[in-house]
C-alpha cells in the first residue's frame, strides 16, 4: 500500500473524527441546561459585556494571567505561536494564498519556535512544581510530547531537512478536492503528518475539549441579571 493511500485514509478518518466528535460535544454542551444563574461575579450585566468577557478570556487568557504569570506566559506563547503557525499553513491548502497569509508568513515561520518554547515551559512545570506534578497524569505528559513532536518535526522540515513543499501542497489540495496526488516520501513529513492526525483524532476525547468548553462555561458566559430576568430550565419547569 502506498504512503499516499495510507495518509489519505488517515486524514479523512482524522478529519471526520475531529469534526463529528467536536460537533457532538458542542451539541451535548448546548443542549444540557444550566438551571441556575452561576456567573462568577463581578460579571457583565449585558450580552455584549459577556461577549467581551469571553473574548478577553479566549484571546488574552485573562483569568490565567491573574492566577499564575509563568503558566500564562508559556501557555499564551504556545497557543499564540500555534495560531500563527496554523494560519501560515493555510498556504498549503489554497492555490493562491490570501494576502494576509503572505503577510504573516515571516512571523509564522518563527512562531514555531515560540510554540516550542511555550510547550517546554509547560512541560517543565509538570516536573518542577510539586503541585502540578501531583495533578498530572500520563496523558498530560503525552499530550505535551505529541505537540512538541509536531512542532519539532515541522521546524526540522523548515530549517534542517527541506521537504518538497510543492509536493506537499499538491497532496493537501488533492485531498480536499478528491483528486489524489502523491505525498512526498520524506520520513520527517510522515512523522509530522502522522502526529497531526493523531492529535486530530484524540481531540474530541481528551482535555483538548477545553477549546470548546470555555464557550459553554456558565460561570463565564452568563449575564448577571437574575433579579431582572427569570431563568428556568426545562427540566425544572416540570416541578413548578
Amino acid at each position: 500500500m502506498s504512503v499516499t493511500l495510507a495518509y489519505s485514509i488517515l486524514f479523512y478518518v482524522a478529519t471526520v473524527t475531529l469534526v463529528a466528535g467536536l460537533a457532538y460535544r458542542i451539541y451535548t454542551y448546548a443542549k444540557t441546561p444550566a438551571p441556575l444563574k452561576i456567573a462568577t461575579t463581578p460579571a457583565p450585566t449585558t450580552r455584549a459585556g459577556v461577549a467581551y468577557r469571553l473574548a478577553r478570556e479566549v484571546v488574552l487568557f485573562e483569568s490565567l494571567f491573574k492566577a499564575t504569570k509563568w503558566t500564562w506566559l508559556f501557555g499564551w506563547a504556545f497557543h499564540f505561536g500555534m495560531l500563527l503557525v496554523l494560519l501560515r499553513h493555510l498556504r498549503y491548502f489554497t492555490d493562491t494564498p490570501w494576502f494576509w497569509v503572505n503577510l504573516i508568513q515571516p512571523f509564522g515561520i518563527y512562531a514555531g519556535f515560540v510554540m516550542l518554547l511555550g510547550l517546554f515551559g509547560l512541560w517543565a512545570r509538570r516536573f518542577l512544581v510539586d503541585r502540578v506534578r501531583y495533578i498530572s497524569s500520563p496523558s498530560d505528559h503525552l499530550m505535551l510530547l505529541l505537540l512538541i513532536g509536531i512542532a519539532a518535526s515541522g521546524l526540522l522540515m523548515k530549517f534542517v531537512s527541506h521537504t518538497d513543499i510543492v509536493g506537499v501542497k499538491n497532496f493537501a489540495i488533492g485531498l480536499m478536492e478528491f483528486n489524489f496526488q502523491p505525498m512526498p516520501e520524506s520520513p520527517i513529513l510522515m512523522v509530522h503528518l502522522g502526529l497531526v492526525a493523531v492529535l486530530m483524532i484524540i481531540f474530541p476525547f481528551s482535555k483538548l475539549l477545553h477549546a470548546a468548553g470555555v464557550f459553554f462555561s456558565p460561570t463565564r458566559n452568563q449575564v448577571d441579571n437574575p433579579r431582572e430576568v427569570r431563568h428556568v430550565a426545562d427540566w425544572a419547569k416540570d416541578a413548578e
Partner: protein
Amino acid sequence: MAAAKFDTPELKDIPVIPAIQEGVMAHSSPFIAKPEHQEPLGFPGELVDNWQQVALDKMEDLTHKYRSFKVYLDSCVKCGACTDKCHYFLGTADPKNMPVARQDLLRKVYRRYFTLAGKFFPKLVGAVDLTKEVLDDWYSYFHQCSQCRRCSVFCPYGIDTAEISMAAREILDTVGVGQKYCNEIIAKLYKIGNNLGLPEPALVDTLEGLEEDVEEETGVAVKYPVDIEGADVLVVTPSADFFAEPHIDGLIGYGKVFHQAGINWTLSSYASEAANFGMFIGSYDNMKQVALRIRKAALDLGVKRIVVGECGHAWRVAYSFWNTLAGPFDFLDPNYPVPQHIIEVTHDLIKRGALNLDPSANDEHRVTFHDSCNVARATRMGNMPGGQFILPREVIKASVNHFYDMAPETIHENTFCCGGGGGLLTDDLMELRVKGAMPRMQALDELVREHDVNYLAAICAICKSQFTKTLPYYNFPMDMIGSVHGLVSNAIQLGTKE
C-alpha cells in the same frame, strides 16, 4: 467529644504556598447524617445496598441536568492555576484540597464510566473504579470545600469547584451518606421554620426583649416587629441575628435604619430564616422548597418589598436563585429590586440623606472589611458589576472614621473564605475551620501590625460565627469580628430625624 489535637498554622510575614503533604487531612470528615436527618429531605436513611449503581446513575443524571457539571468535568487541562488558590490547601497543605485535585476525585470516576478514554485506557488518563475508598474520599474532601468559588475566579475556563462539590454531595446524599450538620438543619427548618429550631413564641419574646434593650440604651422606641400584615417590607435574615453575638448588633442596626427612615417593616415567624442550606448539599429540590417559604410569607403578609439581612450564601440564593426557584415575584413593588440587600437599603438611604450618621461614634474602632465569598463572587448589589464591593464599603465609611482595606489580592473577588462556609460551620470540623481561616488571618494580621486595626466587619452570619471561634486561635480577640450594621447602629443618631 474531646477535640482532636492540631496545630494552628503560623502566620508568616508574607504569604507562602506550602509544599504538598499527602493525606494530612484524610482524617477530617464531618458526622454522618442519621435517618431522621436524611428522610425529611427525600434521601435514604443510610448507605443503600446497590450504592455504586445508584451513585453512577445519579452522576449521569447530573451530567444531563447541569451544563456546569458536564463542561467542568470535560474541560480541565490540569494547568495548575487553581492549585494555590484554595484557603484549605494554603492552610492544610493537603494536595487533595487543591481545587483541581478535589474535582479529580469525582472526575476520575466520571472518566472511568462515562468517557471512552477512561473505559479503555484508565491508567493513562487517571481514571479509577468507584470503590468504597473513593466514596470515603468524596465524603472527606467534598466536606473540606466551602464552595467559596475563589478557584473559579482564576480558572481559565471558569471551572467552579463549588459546582462539583455540590454535585458530589448530592450523589452522597442520594446513596444515603449525608452530612449531619447540613441535613439536620434543613430537616429542622421544615419542621419549625428556622435553622435554630426557634419556635414563634421564643422569637416574639426575643424581639420584645430586644426592643426593651434598645429603648433603654437610646431612649427611643425602635420596633422589631413580627408577622405584621400589610407591612411594606419583609425582612428575611439569618436566625443567628436574633441572639448570637455579634450578629444581633446587625439586627439592631436594621431596626434603627428602618425606624429613622420611617419604613414600615416586619419579620415573619413562618419564614424566620434566610439561610438556604439546600444550596450547600447541591439539592435543587430542597433549595426550591426552602425558597418557596419566603414567597409564601411575602404573600401571606401582603408586603411590597423583600429585604435580605447580612448573610452571604442566603444572599446568593436570594439574589441569584429566588427568581428561578420561587418566582416570579410580580406581586411586589416593581420600583425596588427583588430581593434587595439590607446594605442596598441603607446605602440608598445614606445617599438620599435620610439617615443621620455620626462616624465619630465608632472612633474606638479601626475597621477593615471582609468580603464574604458568596456575596463577592456570586452576587451583585446596586446596578453596576462590582457593586457588592463598593456599597458595603461606602456604608462602612459613612459610619466610621478609620477604615483600611486588606491586601488587594485578598479582597473583592479575590477574597479569602472565612473557612466555615458551605456547611462546614460545625464543631466536628474545627481543625479544618481553623486551618482554612489562615489566609484571611494572614491578611488581617498585616493590617493589625500596620494600622492597629481592631474591627473586622462582615456581612455574613457564617463569617461572623466562624471568626468568633477562630480569631482566638490566632491570638486575636474574638470580639474583633462585627456586623456592618453594628457600625451603622453605633453611628446612627436616633431622634434627630423624626
